[in-house]
């Protein structure tokens, strides 16, 4: 999500599932929606069947998505920057981009400050000691008002720098890196190149096959740049569509169960930010164009103060800056791998896991189990036992040597409680409680509220370190020990404290402590008239429920923000408010008002050459082809995975990204990376249709469908190794091993990469030492490296080196 926010201003799937049917061309990269999102995939098929859309699937494996795609492109895992880079080069060098769109809606004409450089695989501003770039050097030239200088013909205009950067990605180079045959790539490029016309639209669909890499952020950003050049952002049938993998990842990201943000994507404050003004200085974007709305930047203070007022109630006053000091300020990255890194360093005492089994999720399960063994205490809240609750007696572990105190708290299932899930397309849908809690199971939120209140009571009676936020956190629920999710939904929506009424829009939020909102992007989902996420005006009556005919169904549930179904939809129409394609309108200015979707634009502001620019969430007013909001470069560059069979053909002396976070190395632990000499095969992990991160180990019918762990071995390699389907094989990396059955397959094949033949092995994740069917060496993440993306610190699960042998 980091990459989308850095490019467009928000980090979420821009369109929605049903909208994919409007596309002419669908690029699927790093995803297998036919198997991972089978029902969502119906909308790709509808595009194909109803309007003759083409699907191009670039993936290391020939999957069920490939089977119905018009073109299957076998690509080496983790090389999508080169693939998209080649497409960008094709579009730019043949001037196939949507010129009006690019000039109006992107920063193509912004002039980059002198000093920008890219040489031998490195951007300017690298600090060798810290191992990071100084991203502030990647900035625009500005005039006296702080606005960016704009001159499309300037040699340092973003468009000219972009063209120069990607000129190196010619079809031969793309083929050398990705393994895609040159002729096939050229054919793909020709099809993509047609999508820059206003009457054509392409969508990019992706999933963790792009995010789970040390260069994940840049893999996604390169697709986003391509989409901007083709003028496809904001349009029905267009967009960057990230398929989230779990029912409510989107909702829980929005509400910030994430180390670096507060609800509504407000940044977590950093040390040194003494007070709100200093915080805003470094967090809120600044207007860099006189016609930029800079909506987020301008209103940041209102959203932060409303949040603080919600959390700390009467303790948040003007005099104490609304208790800004109560917010914890982390010293360093505190994301997933960092948690276990801290435990390995002996600095973490306790971990609470709810619906997350750290041991299986990894990466580097064996090291994660060591981290758990270093804890004083571990609390697992889950309906079933997990590999984390049972880690102390995992195969090969002596419980007597594990001094961690472990709690297993039986939690309720989704169906035993109400509340809303926000799907990948940002639709917040309410579910009803269908069943009462089973046996002694308790809701996670009741467990957490109860724990918090007991801790509060301990501070009340015994005192302790800085008790104020614990004592003063507002718990305004009828029964604070058992808050109702309906009450919390109202708290998230927010209210006007002077009238006591719930607000209908975030436009009404104030920065003076007179309003509350637990998450500003959800303000309006629960106005005075009721909970809009419960709405069910659906497809049985399209004439009434889908007035635009574009499948928006505005009366079905509620989507953030403001029930808008397509983000950045102002860019679906030209400067004068006319849809780029009248057949597929997003919004249109008709008779003095916007019609169609809820406009992503000042609602009563008309179009025209002097009107505000379309991307209201950025300080520039436009979307960013060049961005300094990512840690590893203002333009995406192809780097090899940390473990790779080849040196980077573009710059062998800087093969991998210089800023990937190597946890073991930074902590002074021995590096645990394998070389191609010892581990000659590339491995990638993935999920099967019947699986959802480990919980499905407990569902009988699904276990019957996929009873046993296996790895997929390409037929050519199997022949070389004498492996046949059903044979037991050992797959090993520098971190660990699996001993499972082999499935010999033509779904995986050999690639020609930089003149060498490279085999890829497929490893379905799922099985472990708990569940209906268990085995000793079934944790797929035993193999994966303990390394994170430079910007997001997302682990590398999709490209690592292994060896395989028949047992």
């Amino acid at each position, binding site marked *: 999500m980091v990459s989308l926010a850095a490019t467009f201003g928000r980090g979420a799937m821009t369109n929605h599932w049903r909208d994919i049917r409007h596309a002419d061309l669908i690029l699927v990269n790093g995803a297998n929606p036919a198997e991972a999102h089978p*029902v969502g995939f119906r909308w790709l098929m509808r595009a194909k069947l109803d309007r003759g859309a083409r699907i191009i699937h670039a993936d290391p494996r020939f999957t069920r998505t490939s089977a119905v795609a018009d073109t299957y492109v076998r690509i080496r895992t983790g090389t999508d920057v080169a693939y998209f880079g080649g497409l960008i080069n094709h579009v730019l060098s043949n001037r196939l981009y949507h010129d009006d769109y690019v000039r109006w809606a992107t920063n193509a004409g912004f002039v980059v400050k002198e000093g920008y450089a890219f040489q031998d695989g490195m951007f300017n501003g690298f600090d060798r000691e810290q191992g990071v770039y100084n991203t502030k050097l990647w900035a625009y030239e500005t005039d006296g008002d702080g606005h960016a200088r704009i001159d499309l013909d300037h040699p340092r205009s973003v468009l000219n720098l972009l063209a120069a950067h990607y000129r190196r990605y010619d079809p031969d180079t793309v083929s050398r890196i990705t393994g895609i045959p040159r002729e096939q790539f050229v054919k793909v490029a020709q099809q993509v190149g047609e999508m820059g016309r206003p009457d054509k639209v392409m969508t990019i669909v992706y999933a963790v096959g792009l995010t789970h890499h040390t260069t994940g952020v840049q893999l996604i950003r390169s697709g986003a740049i391509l989409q901007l050049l083709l003028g496809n952002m904001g349009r029905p049938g267009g967009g960057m569509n990230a398929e989230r993998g779990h*029912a409510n990842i989107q909702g829980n990201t929005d509400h910030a169960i994430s180390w670096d943000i507060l609800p509504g994507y407000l940044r977590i404050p950093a040390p040194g930010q003494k007070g709100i003004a200093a915080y805003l200085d470094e967090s809120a974007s600044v207007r860099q164009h006189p016609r930029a709305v800079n909506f987020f930047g301008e209103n940041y203070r209102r959203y932060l103060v409303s949040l603080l007022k919600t959390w700390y109630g009467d303790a948040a006053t003007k005099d104490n800056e609304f208790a800004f000091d109560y*917010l914890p300020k982390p010293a360093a990255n505190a994301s997933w791998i960092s948690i276990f890194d801290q435990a390995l360093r002996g600095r973490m005492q306790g971990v609470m896991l709810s619906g997350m089994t750290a041991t299986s999720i990894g990466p580097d399960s064996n090291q994660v189990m060591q981290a758990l063994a270093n804890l004083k205490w571990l609390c697992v809240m889950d309906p079933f036992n997990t590999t984390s609750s049972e880690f102390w007696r995992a195969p090969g572990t002596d419980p007597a040597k594990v001094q961690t105190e472990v709690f297993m708290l039986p939690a309720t299932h*989704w169906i035993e409680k109400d509340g809303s899930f926000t799907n990948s397309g940002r639709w917040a849908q309410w579910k009803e409680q269908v069943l009462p809690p089973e046996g002694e199971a308790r809701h*996670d*939120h009741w467990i957490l509220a109860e724990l918090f209140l007991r801790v509060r009571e301990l501070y009340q009676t*015994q005192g302790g370190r800085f008790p104020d936020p614990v004592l003063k956190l507002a718990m305004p629920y009828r029964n604070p020990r058992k808050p109702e999710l309906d009450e*919390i939904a109202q*708290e998230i929506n927010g209210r006007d404290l002077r009238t006591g009424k719930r607000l209908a829009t975030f436009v009404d939020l104030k920065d003076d402590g007179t309003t509350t909102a637990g998450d500003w992007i959800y303000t309006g989902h629960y106005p005075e008239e009721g909970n809009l996420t419960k709405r069910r005006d659906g497809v049985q009556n399209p004439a009434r429920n889908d007035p635009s005919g574009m499948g928006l169904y505005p009366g079905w549930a509620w989507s953030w923000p403001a029930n808008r179904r397509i983000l950045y939809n102002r860019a679906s129409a030209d400067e004068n408010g006319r849809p780029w394609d009248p057949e597929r309108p997003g919004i249109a200015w008709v008779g003095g008002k916007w019609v169609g979707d809820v406009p992503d634009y000042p609602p009563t502001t008309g179009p025209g050459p002097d009107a505000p620019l379309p991307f209201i969430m950025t300080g520039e007013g436009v979307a960013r082809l060049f961005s300094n909001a990512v840690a590893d470069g203002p333009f995406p560059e192809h780097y090899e995975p940390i473990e790779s069979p080849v040196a980077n053909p573009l710059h062998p002396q800087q093969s991998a990204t210089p800023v990937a976070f190597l946890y073991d190395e930074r902590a002074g632990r021995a590096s645990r990376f394998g070389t191609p000499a010892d581990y000659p095969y590339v491995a990638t992990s993935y999920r099967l249709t019947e699986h959802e991160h480990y919980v499905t180990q407990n569902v009988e019918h699904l276990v019957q469908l996929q009873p046993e762990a296996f790895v997929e071995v390409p037929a050519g390699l199997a022949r070389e190794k004498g492996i046949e389907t059903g044979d037991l094989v050992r797959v090993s990396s520098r971190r660990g091993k699996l001993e499972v059955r082999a499935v010999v397959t033509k779904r995986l094949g050999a690639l020609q990469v930089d003149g060498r033949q490279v085999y890829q092995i497929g490893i379905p994740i799922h099985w472990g030492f708990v569940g209906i069917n268990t085995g000793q060496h079934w944790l797929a993440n035993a193999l994966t490296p303990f390394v994170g993306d430079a910007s997001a610190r997302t682990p590398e699960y999709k490209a690592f080196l292994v060896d395989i042998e028949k047992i």
Partner: protein
Amino acid sequence: MEVSRRRFLSIGPMGVLGGSALGFDLTESIAIKQRLRIEGATLSRSLCPYCAVGCALIAYTKKAPNGRTELLQIEGDPDSPVNEGTLCPKGATSLQLAVSGRRVPHPLYRAPGAAEWTQVSWEFTLDRLARNIKDSRDATFVTQDAEGNVVNRCEGIAFAGGAAFSSEEGYLATKLMRGLGLVHLEQQARV
């Protein structure tokens, strides 16, 4: 005789195939089962707990004579603009997740070094965990960093969760954990 799946479904209940090919007659049992499932059941609207497509579900429940609520059936909601009544293998078997005999029935406690779980009460676990949280918070809380900045953070406790949370639960978790001063906070988005 060639029988497609659709044809099987259409002729099966009439007993033509049910009686001959399978060696027993499905007609009566199917009819009874359908009637029992639908009649008098309460209809609830839910959502699939698995991937993020957000398929809407309809769940049918009935109060059993012993007072328990029995979950009879889960199916796709035909009104939904997302799934239009369809479900994938995971969604279609979500009933087995909802009512599983594999649930952990009681809070369990494993003392340091112990080889087995001990069954304990909620009172015990909540009290002991609250104690642990306070002790770890006090031991690892930093009010000012080396540069003298007010940071008010608890470094030694981490919370990860949320993939199965309703949004409102997730929000409350964030609020409570930030309230305790936690900085290590994660969910499924990255992994």
